[in-house]
């Protein structure tokens, strides 16, 4: 599992936010477009792509995209 591929998948969930704005350091919850529906989409994405059951708390505890990536990676 590599982070750039993960960011590509994550970027697909956003409508307004350009892929170039998403880096491992991006604080995703600070993005204007971030919403509870996007959080649910990330949980569904982790389930569908990596077969990982992400919890709401995992998203709450992650600050950057890299944090999110590592959380998923550690659960694979």
């Amino acid at each position, binding site marked *: 599992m590599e982070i750039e591929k993960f960011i590509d998948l994550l970027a697909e969930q956003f409508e307004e936010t350009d892929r170039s704005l998403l880096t491992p350091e991006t604080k995703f919850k600070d993005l204007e477009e971030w919403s*509870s529906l996007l959080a*649910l989409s990330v949980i569904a994405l982790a389930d569908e792509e990596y077969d990982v059951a992400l919890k*709401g*708390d995992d998203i709450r505890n992650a600050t950057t995209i890299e944090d999110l990536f590592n959380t998923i990676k550690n659960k694979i």
Partner: protein
Amino acid sequence: MSYNPYSLEGKTILITGASSGIGQTTAIECSKLGAKVIITARNEKRLNETFLQLHGEGHQQIIADLTVREDLDYLIENITQLDGLVNNAGINKILPVQFINENDFENILKINTIAPVFLMQRLFKKKKFNRNASIVITSSIGGVFSITPANAMYGMSKSAISSFMKFTALEMSIKGIRCNCVNPGMIETPLIDKAVLTTEDRERDIAKYPLKRYGKPTDVAFGIIYLLSDASSWVTGTSLVIDGGITI
């Protein structure tokens, strides 16, 4: 003798999904009001836990997966005449529309919609209901009165069963059999996926409820009991919303 128009004395009531949550509480409360209950669910251990909490005598427990034809046949063969049925078994999975998939949707539909439809169909065909029997379906506000993100599969299953309730109410009225739904908001049961919601999400969600709390299983059980009892003799084809005011 105390006056109680909601008494279930002398009634035999079949309750599905009785091993936890709303079904379990409904079974126990019905037994307290004098009903003989027949409880069914898939999990033997948990169903027995419900069984041990029933008040009074003459109750029955039958392990069955209502999505399996043989289990359904076995259940139908092994029950007596009914005065009431509570279709309560249900599951949920939270997924945004673009992530829904056939596998999860089929599973949800099988348990929430198809199983209760064919349980009722078979019970009608085998003439298992006494005259003046009452059928209650645990629907939801979700998909029927309330549309929220990521709840499409569940909402569709509940909206379909709510529709079936009305057809049944109309067609069975000639036999004096009533059919109604209860439509709960968020109830504190094992069905709530605590993993998806964070504590903060939960608190934010509760704050939206005019009565400032999620429901308890008894909040729904008492609505079901009203619809099972003779107090609701002239009520059929309705949806009783029990939701702390969230859909106001």
